[in-house]
């Protein structure tokens, strides 16, 4: 086994362990964990099964197998980043609506308090 392979395997497994721990502790929601688990899974698989990576690279016409790993990983990360921006936009919208509702409710509450004490 190559030294690079060993390092990749160890890092990927450590990362996988971290994602698992975060989900178990409830700090990471499952839907966000899916992408990370998938990505790490692919890395671990091809770290062990080097021949498979070479076969796949030949099939799609990529000369250096490592480049295939990079290309696919970067693409998945891009899609994931877009997803995160989507989540942020949604949260911002919900946050705005909530802040406005709160401010308006406070006024209603003050009116009611006045009525009760009067």
């Amino acid at each position: 086994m190559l030294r690079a392979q060993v390092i990749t395997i160890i890092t990927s497994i450590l990362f996988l362990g971290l994602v698992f721990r975060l989900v178990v502790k409830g700090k990471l929601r499952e839907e966000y964990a899916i992408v990370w688990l998938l990505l790490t899974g692919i890395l671990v698989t091809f770290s062990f099964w080097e021949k498979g990576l070479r076969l796949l690279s030949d099939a799609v016409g990529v000369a250096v197998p490592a480049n295939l790993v990079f290309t696919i990983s970067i693409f998945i990360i891009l899609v994931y980043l877009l997803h995160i921006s989507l989540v942020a936009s949604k949260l911002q919208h919900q946050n705005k609506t909530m802040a406005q509702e709160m401010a308006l409710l406070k006024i209603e509450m003050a009116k009611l308090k006045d009525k009760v004490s009067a």
Partner: protein
Amino acid sequence: MKILVIVPCYNEQASLPKLLADLEFLSLPTKYELSVAVINDCSKDNTAEIARSSYATLINLPVNLGIGGAVQSGLKYALQNNFDLAVQIDGDGQHPPKELAKLITCYEETNANLVIGSRFIDKEGFQSSFMRRSGITYFRYLNKILTGQKIYDSTSGFRLFDRRAIRLCAGYYPDDYPEPESLIFFSKAGLVIKETSVIMEERNGGQSSIRHFSSVFYCLKVTLAMLFSSVRKPDLVC
């Protein structure tokens, strides 16, 4: 007719007392009943205290939402409390309350859904800097291309909303730099937009939300927002 004056404020302690006093002693035709709502967009100064100790209703936002979110809060308040008309008057003293009568007159004459107070029809009063006027001219043409309507002062926040416009904006209103973008949104929703000449003043205190290098960003952001708005169906946004 119940009119709500919406005063969005961010750190406007310097200009707010005079504005509130001007509004309190404003004389309008007797059929209009005026209320004032100060929207404090999480100011760091005494804006909230000034508004609380006055006759105005204070809408105190717990987090900073930006001008669009603040104005929309006021419009939601107008909708919930059954106001017939709503007018946005910025907290910095740029929009003299006595000019409000002109917006109302225009509304009465045209029955438009939205009346914009414009600095540039008669070119009276504070005309803003050259750079800003160039930007506004650019938006005028962009607006013309996208909606076919000619609006001189598309960045003016001095606006009167009727019931239909209030309802529409309570549902959707852009967050930051909302004025030019919302015009596209209104046109697409089929609102009638009219413009009337008003005299504006230079701000009394505080700072504009658009400064320095960010003006390039402002133009870009607004251009993008206008383009997207022009291809979006108005009922698509919630």
